[in-house]
């Protein structure tokens, strides 16, 4: 009896705590949306308002009407970059992760440390030489210049490696007995069975591509090759700042990711669950 009452009390307490925390976590989204509908005087006002005085949809329409700031174009660019980067980088990482986990050849440890090593070296400072390398190959202002360096994700290799390390060996052996080569086993058995993992790491890679800033700033010089983050930063100028449009733009820029999360969150959770993070 006592124990039962204790469980109920504990579970109510859990719900209360979780609900409070969820509210706290969602507050910044609320503030973002509120500001996106405000006018400039309201955003910079010195007293708090729970809601904008009116829903200023023109903050949103102005985003797309302004010929001086190709916001719509930048959304398309970001979408293209993320839609290409996510599957390609995840596939490449899966291939390498599988080989490192399951194909035992001499020199495997060297390859692994070469890949993991890139995680430890801060990227900000090696950006310049990378920029010159990509520039000399004609990558400035091009889609491939924006995309290519982001396709090689060592972090995902590490996660895939631990995921494949815990893969049941029997499936592979059965495939081998059926006459499949190592590559055949990967392509026909392993890959179809890692769809969830690929979806979840693909989602993370999508977010990273969508939110990256410094590289597109340097390589996408022309406004026609701006990404959405660059377009957003163009609101913060040194003369006058259009805050409501900046907030509206930020809300629009977050929206695709939020939708993706809402749709894919079950897969993301399961995928990461399957990785098990054994090592």
């Amino acid at each position, binding site marked *: 009896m006592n124990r039962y009452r204790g469980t109920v009390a504990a579970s109510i307490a859990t719900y209360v705590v979780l609900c409070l925390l969820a509210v706290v976590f969602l507050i910044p989204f609320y503030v973002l949306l509120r500001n996106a509908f405000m006018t400039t005087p309201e955003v*910079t006002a010195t007293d708090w308002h729970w809601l904008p005085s009116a829903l200023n949809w023109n903050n949103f329409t102005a985003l797309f009407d302004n010929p*001086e700031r190709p916001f719509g174009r930048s959304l*398309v660019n970001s979408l293209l970059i993320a839609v290409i980067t996510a599957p390609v980088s995840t596939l490449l990482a899966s291939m390498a992760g599988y080989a490192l986990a399951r194909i035992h050849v001499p020199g495997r440890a060297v390859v692994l440390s070469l890949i993991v090593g890139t995680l430890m070296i801060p990227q900000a400072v090696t950006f310049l030489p990378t920029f010159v390398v990509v520039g000399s190959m004609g990558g400035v*202002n091009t889609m491939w210049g924006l995309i290519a360096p982001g396709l090689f994700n060592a972090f995902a290799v590490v996660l895939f490696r631990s995921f494949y390390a815990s893969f049941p060996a029997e499936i592979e052996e059965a495939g081998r007995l059926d006459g499949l080569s190592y590559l055949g086993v990967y392509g026909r058995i392993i890959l179809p069975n890692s769809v969830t993992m690929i979806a979840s790491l693909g989602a993370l890679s999508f977010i990273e591509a969508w939110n990256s800033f410094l590289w597109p700033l340097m390589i996408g010089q022309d*406004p026609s090759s701006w990404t959405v983050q660059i377009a957003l930063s163009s609101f913060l*100028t040194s003369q006058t700042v259009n805050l409501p449009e900046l907030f509206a733009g930020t809300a629009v820029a977050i929206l695709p990711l939020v939708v993706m999360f809402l749709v894919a969150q079950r897969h993301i959770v399961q995928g990461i669950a399957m990785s098990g993070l054994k090592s």
Partner: protein
Amino acid sequence: MSARSALSRRGFLGTSLLFVAGSAVACSSNPQGTAAAKGAKVTLTQWYHQYGEEGTQAAVKRYAEEYTKANPDVAVNVVWGADTSQYETKLNAALLGADAPDIFELGDFRAEMARKGQLEPLDDIYGSAKDGFNQADLDYLTVDGKLYGMKTIDDVMVLYYRKSLLKKAGVTPPTTFAELVDTAKELTTGGVKGLFIGNDGIGDSPYLLAWSQGKDLIDGDKVVYADAAKSIGGLRDLHSDKSVLLGFTTDWYDAGAFTQSAAAMQWCGLWALPTIEKALGDDFGVAPWPAYDKNGRPVARLGGWTQAVNAKSKHKDEAKKYLQWLWIKQTDIQIDWAVKYGFHVPPQTEVAARTPELSKGAAKDAVAIGTKNGVSFPAEWTQAMQAGFIAAAADIAKGAAPEKTLEKAQAKAQSDLDKQMG
């Protein structure tokens, strides 16, 4: 079953990849292929940073098209974007690579760029027009006897004050630093703070303090700002009263804090004057940063934007001719650029004199302050020196000993300067 669904899934993935790759190729644009380039023998690339005022981008594109109309052999591809701090990063990266612009804007002119051979000397296109330019600008852009840039606008930064609030508090615009501290304190009531110089409470004030004490940052090949320990030490007094507005939504270069009555006085640029006038009517005035004491002098900061020609450009001559046409000869364009999108001052004194918007009211006062009290950063000043100087000032504002802190930063800046002068 599972094999088939996997296959179809893979098929789907493949198709969508092909589709996306195809549209990516279709979408990747060739920035040189703008309409203006058709029929032109030479296409110049010209970079601007992101101006905040509406209509600026259309304006510079219009200027470029007018040039092509007059000179059909030369097209100009205007590349726009990145705010002041990121613009410099982006430009510097581009200058290292193969896709550098032929002509570009510079916010803070860096003499080091000229000494490292990144800029083309422009003396020949200045010609006799040189004498008509603001002398302070010419001094600023001269490195080892040669001119390496052309000012397109001068920005004057001044102290804006609300007349009505000063009157209510029974004070007048400050003329010494001690008065500034007192006035700010008097003006601080309820939700209104006395003074706004930047969200960090520092802004450009260390420069203004040093200059207002009659001191320099660099004198010849010596960094000397530690001489201004007395005035920069005043930051502490300014902060101890809590009369300085901190952490506003927008920073000092936007008029928001002033027009929203969050601060009774704000350090801001002439560019914001139209916005302020629209919000406050004639309830405001402008003043220079006050002299530190009787031996000092009132000062204002002189900024603005400079255009320069890339020394490695393949079309240097065309680029120089275009600059000469645009920023020396086309006085109507210069006036349009200076006052139609926020207020700036045309660098040619004769052009500035006949700009109607600048010859009345507070704008006129601000221009006069700029002419009389304006000081530019030294051209040898670098971002590292700036960071070290501002950091020292921020420490002093928090209570560090002024002399010792400034001397330490100065020693570091001196070694940077020695390296730069090579």
